[in-house]
């Protein structure tokens, strides 16, 4: 997959990188077990500090999306994620966003539809991948 980082964006660079890799895994663009570029290679390609990539990889490792090995580097985790406590985590993430949606006048159905659409968008890419391997 192609990772794109927006230097003018609001989110910190490491967090953009983390998000892109999570989306890549969800969309099937990064397959379980697939080797990720080395920290140095990825930093050089994007044109960012090595420490930024290190930070994103460490975060992804702690969240269980990737595994890191001293010799073979980073790879997408082959095992399913540990989803205990995910509902609480998701609630924490979504609560302020739901509040913002209320402030902007969205009702529950509209907000729900919005979330479902985004879910479909990422799923759809995965379906295309599986149809044309």
């Amino acid at each position, binding site marked *: 997959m*192609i990772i794109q980082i927006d*230097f003018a964006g609001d989110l910190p660079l490491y967090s953009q990188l983390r998000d892109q890799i999570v989306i890549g895994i969800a969309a099937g663009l990064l397959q379980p077990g697939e080797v990720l570029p080395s920290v140095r290679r990825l930093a050089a390609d994007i044109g960012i500090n090595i420490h930024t990539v290190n930070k994103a990889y460490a975060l992804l490792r702690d969240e269980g999306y990737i595994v890191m090995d001293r010799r073979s580097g980073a790879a997408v985790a082959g095992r399913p994620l540990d989803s205990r406590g995910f509902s609480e985590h998701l609630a924490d993430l979504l609560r302020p966003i739901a509040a913002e949606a209320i402030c902007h006048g969205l009702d529950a159905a509209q907000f729900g539809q919005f979330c479902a659409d985004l879910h479909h968008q990422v799923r759809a890419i995965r379906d295309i991948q599986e149809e044309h391997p």
Partner: protein
Amino acid sequence: MNILQGLFFAINLLLALTMGAMLTVLPLITRKSLLFGVRIPESALDHPRVRQLKTRYLAVLLALSVLTLAAALVVHLTRPAYNLIASLYLPLPLLIGQFLTTVALWRQARRLKAQENWQVAHLGTAETRSSRARTAFGGLPWAWYLGSLALLVLAVLVSLAVYPSMPQTIVTHWNAAMEPDAWAEKSLIHVLIMPIIALVMIVIMLLSNLAIYRTKLQVSLENPALSYAQHRVYRLWMSHMLGFITAIMTIMFLAFQPMVLNLWVPSSGVMILIILVTSTLMIVPAIVVSVKAGQGGTRLKPAITQADVAAAGFADSSRPAMRSGRGDDRFWKLGMFYVNPEDPALFVEDRLGNNGGLNYARPLAWVMVVVLLGLIIATYALSTALLLELV
């Protein structure tokens, strides 16, 4: 000697024409979003001032090329003995003129961007496939390199077979009229020097071919799958071009092997013909591929495969929206020297034309520049001294 002077004049004309043409087309083959090192939005491409700056470059470069041709003619008419030395120094004013023109136009482009308040996205892109998978991208044309190596091995075997029957004293140097003027005791190193140089050249070409697969991937926001397809085809074309040049270069070196073995001494005409034909065969594909493909393949319109879409991934709608701003101009000094201490990359895509550039925030970049400049100056000093003696 007059025929030789005529040939050297022809070489000068060819040199001036080739260099003039290569420098003149630079803005044409550069990414459209770059105007003399300044990043501009796609919507600004048809702005009359943008067209005006490009036309100005074209006019100045054409004038410089014509002046270089005229200078070659003047040297030939007044001091024909200096024709060969002129081929060393004629390109220099052309290169300096091109540099100054580009800097002047970069300043104007920068002012134009500020005046019009043009905003562009500032993006960093990366391909997640590992370097090994990337080498399989388009595939390296091994046939060219293995073929060149096979030729080389053949030449070495023939040389070793001929070696015992060679006389103890062999000719090692010929003057411009191809009369022997230096002799030496025969030695294996002397017999094998051409294949050794050819081997070094093959390795260098293979390394630069691998470097193409290691340069940054630049993706257009409008159509990432197209960018991906363009890169794929671009890498393929560049690889085959480099492979072809390697084969021609190997043939050129080995063409002199019979001379080294004292088996056959070509006349000076034949020798110049060999050099002219082989260098044409090396220059023409390089120009054709550069102009047809453009920087990173941006002039290509390849068919987009399912694999390109899959690799580029996301439809635009699932990507986060990109903010606009001043872009990455601040990292490009004079619009052509990349200085970014945050970026660990050493090699980057150039801002004008189809060449590679360096990240001058890396100390290794300065080492490379100093070594390269040293080599160029030494070559110039040595060749000038040698050629002045011939005059």
